[in-house]
């Protein structure tokens, strides 16, 4: 085991690189913002990019680490966003400090999303493969439909809920409607900032990387790699799969709060199947299980459509073609061979097979 004695393990170095990447990016961008070097466009996208990064990282937990296809991830974002909005509105007087209020809203948003993740996870964990995928899709649509019919109002007596109309809330004079069914939430006080977004990204990365390196993380990956073998050595597969699912939902919920409180109006329709697919594409293009990849691909793929505005008519067409081409190219056997040979020529020592080195982890 020559590797062990050489100081920091490969995974730790890799993790540190990821943290460094996030911190350096933040510092550089923040400096650019202070010196007014960023365009309005880019500046306006900083918070959504942070939210999408966290969404991608959290989905990677389910898709990459746990090896399950989830097609309803935007539903958790939605639950978190609307919970956070209600909480922030109801605490507007109690907690005047915007940063504190946002953090409290995020905690509640993440918490509710985690509960939703748990409730959804129980039936979902009984299925596998493509059936699991379709059920997550179904739940995503159910959440969207339910939230479309949700009315929430706040007055002096407290918080009121209704599933039929705003009038049915029965609020006293001076009460205000916070969530107005399909019109979503309007009049949101924008609380999200880039700094908080950065903190959330760091938190998400920290949580997921630590999970990967922990016993639970290894158990989750064992279940992914060979469920029956894992069961046969006594790993409680349902518990670990559910753990990954709930954690991922919680992070998605917090990302939802960040996203929702960045705009003065948010509608449930936004968090639909297309958004779930969008995030799935981030994860797959970045590499399954690769947190750094998710960060990079979420950032690039969020900025790219804006950068392509000059060819607006063909934007989505180009996006589709690029998507197909990337998939084709990276799965082309000849190109893969070529790539491996190029990489091989850079390596000084022969590459150890994955199993023999540090616990068989995949690259961060």
């Amino acid at each position: 085991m020559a590797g062990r004695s050489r100081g920091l393990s490969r995974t730790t170095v890799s993790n540190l690189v990821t943290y460094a990447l996030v911190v350096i990016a933040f510092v550089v961008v923040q400096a650019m913002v202070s010196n007014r070097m960023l365009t309005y466009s880019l500046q306006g996208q900083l918070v959504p990019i942070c939210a999408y990064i966290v969404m991608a990282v959290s989905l990677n937990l389910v898709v990459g680490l746990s090896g399950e296809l989830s097609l309803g991830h935007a539903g958790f974002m939605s639950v978190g966003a609307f919970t956070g909005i209600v909480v922030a509105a109801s605490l507007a007087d109690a907690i005047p400090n915007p940063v504190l209020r946002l953090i409290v809203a995020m905690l509640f948003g993440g918490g509710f999303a985690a509960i939703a993740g748990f409730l959804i996870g129980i039936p979902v964990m009984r299925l596998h493969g493509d059936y699991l995928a379709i059920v997550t899709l179904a739940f995503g649509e159910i959440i969207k439909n339910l939230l479309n019919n949700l009315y929430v109002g706040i007055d002096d007596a407290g918080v009121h809920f209704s599933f039929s109309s705003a009038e049915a809330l029965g609020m006293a004079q001076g009460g205000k409607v916070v969530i107005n069914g399909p019109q979503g939430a309007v009049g949101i006080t924008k609380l999200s900032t880039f700094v908080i977004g950065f903190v959330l990204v760091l938190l998400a990365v920290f949580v997921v990387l630590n999970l990967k390196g922990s016993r639970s993380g290894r158990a989750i990956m064992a279940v992914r790699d060979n469920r029956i073998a894992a069961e046969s050595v006594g790993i409680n597969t349902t518990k670990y799969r559910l753990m990954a699912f709930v954690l991922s939902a919680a992070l998605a919920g917090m990302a939802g709060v960040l996203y929702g409180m960045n705009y003065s109006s948010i509608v449930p329709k936004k968090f639909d199947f297309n958004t779930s697919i969008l995030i799935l594409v981030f994860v797959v293009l970045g590499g399954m299980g690769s947190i750094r990849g998710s960060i990079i691909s979420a950032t690039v793929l969020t900025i790219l459509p804006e950068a392509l505005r000059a060819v607006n008519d063909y934007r989505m067409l180009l996006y589709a073609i690029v998507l197909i081409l990337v998939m084709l190219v990276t799965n082309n056997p000849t190109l893969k061979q070529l790539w491996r040979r190029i990489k091989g020529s850079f390596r000084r020592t022969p590459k150890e097979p994955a199993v023999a080195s540090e616990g068989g982890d995949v690259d961060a």
Partner: protein
Amino acid sequence: MGFVSNLVNGISLGAVYAIIALGYTMVYGIAKMLNFAHGDIIMVGGYLCFCSISYLGLNPFVSVLVSIVGCTVLGIVIERLAYKPLREAPSLDVLITAIGVSYLLQNTALLIWGSNPKSFPNLFKSLGNIRLFDGQLVISSTAIVTIATNIVIMLALTWFTSKTRMGKAMRACSEDKGAAQLMGINVNSTISLTFAIGSGLAAVAGVLLCSAYPTLMPTTGSMPGIKAFVAAVLGGIGSIPGAMVGGILLGVAEIFAKAYIGTQFSDAIVFALLIVVLLIKPTGILGKPISEKV
């Protein structure tokens, strides 16, 4: 009378879902891939038929044929260019590629035909509606044609897969590709044929869908595609009779949910139905129970 009327509407809607679901299930059975672009091939079928009738002035029957041929060719081209190179790739990559193809089709349609919705002509107006019980129950000609087409396709496919060589080859490939190849079956052309049939069916579904609900836009195929996918899984993905059962069930459930529970929550109820069924029967209603080899 309301109940019967709703039942007929449900079966008619379900028949459309069933035809679309057939395409999904056949492709999944053989290539083990979820072809998300399937819904958009429906849309292309609708547009091809519309253009043949409106711009080329061809008669409806020929236009439908044009549409079927066009979609079949499109299906084969897509399969050759985008899916075949990914036969050995992880299934998630194929899924993303399928999504890419879906976006590609939608946006190309947008560029070619524009965003303005087109009103699809009622091809079956001349057949006349059936009015029963003094006009209280109306069964439209489109509904009759749809259900009839569904039955015909079902019978044809069942005969095809059990009696013909190509059909049996398809079944063999879906069971075990390796063994099929060893038996001398050309797996590649079998898969291509499956896509071709699936796409042809999509064209038929497109024509029927647009006849029943005459608005045609580049995004027309998207939601029916998702619902038909749900229907295919509901009936047991990979099973041809399952696609029919799942489709009809979904259509009836959707209409009944709208009529008797409330139009606001009908989507949620339909999807909840899927979840309940899958919890009871994890591989779908007619799906084969999967036993895993350790």
